[in-house]
């Protein structure tokens, strides 16, 4: 999708004012959090698994060039093909070329965030192909012409009645009087609608949750079974993925799988975890004749060895956004690009540029919940802070913001001035607040006082108290 992250402020304001969206988000808020907590509580080894998973990824990233080469050799040995793409344009061109070569008309797709990242559907449709998303959530948002609002629950911003209205509007060949008020009826209808496409598609595209260097396998993790039908029935299977998904061995994949579903949906394990290695073997009664893997870079390789490398450990479970007080209120679309929430704030500037994504690292209260729940122990707030530094250095931050920081820095480097200014400010605020002790309005701080009062500082400054205490102790 085309990013609209520069509009984050306006998007967020609109999302907060949208009562329907707020109702849906309200409902979603508690489910993910409590289910994750329950699953984690049942597995005493969870934190040790997190440590191990982090170590696996750190090791892999430190040898990423070699593991990529090893992986590629294994895919070739099992009869598959690896394609490399530096940019989204290159990636889409490769997929379109395969589709043309096969004379394909219909493509079924399992859920893939990398394909959202490269805007693959639009490119395929521009090339005259019919693309059918088969994950229920993705199918719903494809019908609506929308991007996903959550990395594991693409339709998290919609209610049951939204989906009912959509199906009535789009499935015109069905009886308009049919009952559709139960979610089960909606799921059954989607199943029936998609059956024919599964069986007649020319190409199936899936993503990959993991790639295994040892065996040259790609791994998908799903609940619906759509990914497996997508990659088993058509004659061609294309895996769209990115270079950081690698792990060395099956054993390493097992460790990560133990924390992935528990962090994401609170399941012990997703219903289907599928390891695919090459195309069907001679004598196999089903499976694709061709197996392609597309490895996308799109800015990731530049993060290796940088202060942002930690973000490449991400396994896209969504726990950070499920626990984020900002995401919970504004929803995924406000972020304006495919990866919302804390992971988006840490990753998007690297993929679409800091100028485009500049608001995202600032859309955080630094409460630290994201880092606390991240199964891969990614220091998300720290990464956002690094982006804020870069934003300041590059002069992207608004002028008033930069002026404010410079002004503060001037005082911070001069302790005597700092003390005097702080005392003066405290006294002024106290005077303005009079007896009420809080301020309803304050020039230059309208953003704060619009939603709550500003309490006036009480007593003396921290530094004054500190000095006094120090003196007493010394005596």
């Amino acid at each position, binding site marked *: 999708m085309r990013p609209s992250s520069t509009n984050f402020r306006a998007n967020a304001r609109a999302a907060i004012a949208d009562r329907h969206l707020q109702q849906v988000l309200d409902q979603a808020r508690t489910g993910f959090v409590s289910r994750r907590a329950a699953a984690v509580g049942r597995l005493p080894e969870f934190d*040790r698994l997190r440590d191990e998973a982090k170590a696996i990824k750190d090791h892999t990233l430190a*040898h990423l*060039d070699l593991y*990529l080469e*090893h992986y590629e050799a294994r895919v070739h040995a099992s009869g598959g093909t690896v394609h490399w793409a530096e940019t989204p344009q290159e990636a889409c061109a490769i997929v379109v070329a395969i589709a043309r070569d096969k004379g394909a008309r219909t493509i079924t797709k399992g859920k893939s965030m990398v394909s959202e990242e490269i805007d693959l559907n639009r490119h395929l449709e521009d090339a005259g192909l019919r693309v059918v998303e088969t994950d229920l959530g993705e199918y719903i948002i494809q019908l609506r012409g929308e991007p996903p609002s959550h990395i594991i629950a693409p339709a998290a911003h919609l209610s049951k009645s939204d989906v009912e209205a959509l199906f009535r509007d789009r499935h015109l060949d069905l009886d308009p009087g049919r009952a559709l008020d139960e979610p089960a009826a909606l*799921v059954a209808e989607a199943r029936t609608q998609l059956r024919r496409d599964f069986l007649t598609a020319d190409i199936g595209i899936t993503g990959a949750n993991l790639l295994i260097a040892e065996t040259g396998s790609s791994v998908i993790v799903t609940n619906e*079974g759509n990914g497996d039908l997508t990659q088993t029935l058509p004659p061609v299977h294309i895996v769209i993925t990115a270079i950081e998904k690698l792990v060395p061995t099956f054993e390493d994949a097992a460790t990560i799988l133990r924390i992935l579903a528990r962090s994401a949906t609170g399941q012990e394990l997703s219903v289907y975890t599928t390891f695919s290695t090459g195309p069907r073997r001679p004598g196999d009664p089903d499976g694709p004749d061709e197996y392609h893997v597309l490895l996308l870079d799109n800015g990731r390789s530049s993060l*290796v*060895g940088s202060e942002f490398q930690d973000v490449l450990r991400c396994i896209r479970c969504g726990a950070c956004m499920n626990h984020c007080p900002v995401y919970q209120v504004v929803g995924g679309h406000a972020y304006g690009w495919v990866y919302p929430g804390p992971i988006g704030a840490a990753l998007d500037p690297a993929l679409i540029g800091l100028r485009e994504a500049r608001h995202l690292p600032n859309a955080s209260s630094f409460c630290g919940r994201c880092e606390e729940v991240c199964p891969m122990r990614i220091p998300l707030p720290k990464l956002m802070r690094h982006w804020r530094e870069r934003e300041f250095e590059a002069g992207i931050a608004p002028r008033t913001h930069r002026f404010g920081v410079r002004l503060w820095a001037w005082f911070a480097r001069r302790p005597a001035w700092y003390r005097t200014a702080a005392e003066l400010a405290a006294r002024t605020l106290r005077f303005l607040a009079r007896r009420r002790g809080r301020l309803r309005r304050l020039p230059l701080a309208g953003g704060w006082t619009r939603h709550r009062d500003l309490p006036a500082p009480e007593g003396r400054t921290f530094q004054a108290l500190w000095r006094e205490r120090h003196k007493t102790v010394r005596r």
Partner: protein
Amino acid sequence: MTARENILARVREGLAAHPADDLRRARIEERLRARGRGPAPARASGDQEHLRALFTEMAREAGATIDTVCAGEVPQRIAAFLRACNLGPEIRTGHDPFLKGLAWQRVPELAVSRGAADAATATGVSAAAAAAAETGTLVFTSGADNPTTLNFLPETHIAVIPASRIKATYEDAWDLVRRAHRPATLPRTVNFVTGPSRTADIEQTLLVGAHGPGRLHVIVVTGA
């Protein structure tokens, strides 16, 4: 320079690594050889009896139904299950040697056909290559005798697993797969299946039976 070369060059630059650095190469080769394991869930340690009980409990929790029988009874129990669910007696299965060795002829009411599943297949029967007790997970491997479509296309999936193939962890289960396929490469598909197909994409309401089988019935075969 190709995209591949550019990407690898950037990674090496970031890591300040030289492509001919033998020490790094030796390190990854050692790691790939050693296949070290992470922490295993303590819940999965115990004897075979414990593993079978844990597998049963976890698979049930994931929404599967479980029947434990001896090898001679499998066809009858499949027929009884289909009757109880008001399903037709037609089943589709592969040429898996374990399944083929069962006494199907003793239950003439079952209409057994063999091969990959298609749109008309209502019930697929397949043999699991292994299972991991830790989460009640079945492992299926594709091959000439084991079509993958049997596990996904039909509305009802019946999985038969000899009790001795129930292992403690994913790694233990995977070792069975590795042993069966050495020295050749892995099968095209290895499926880990934990319960029937489901979705929570509409208002986070958990619903069983999305695109895969809405019913997963597991038959654990004792003494096999």
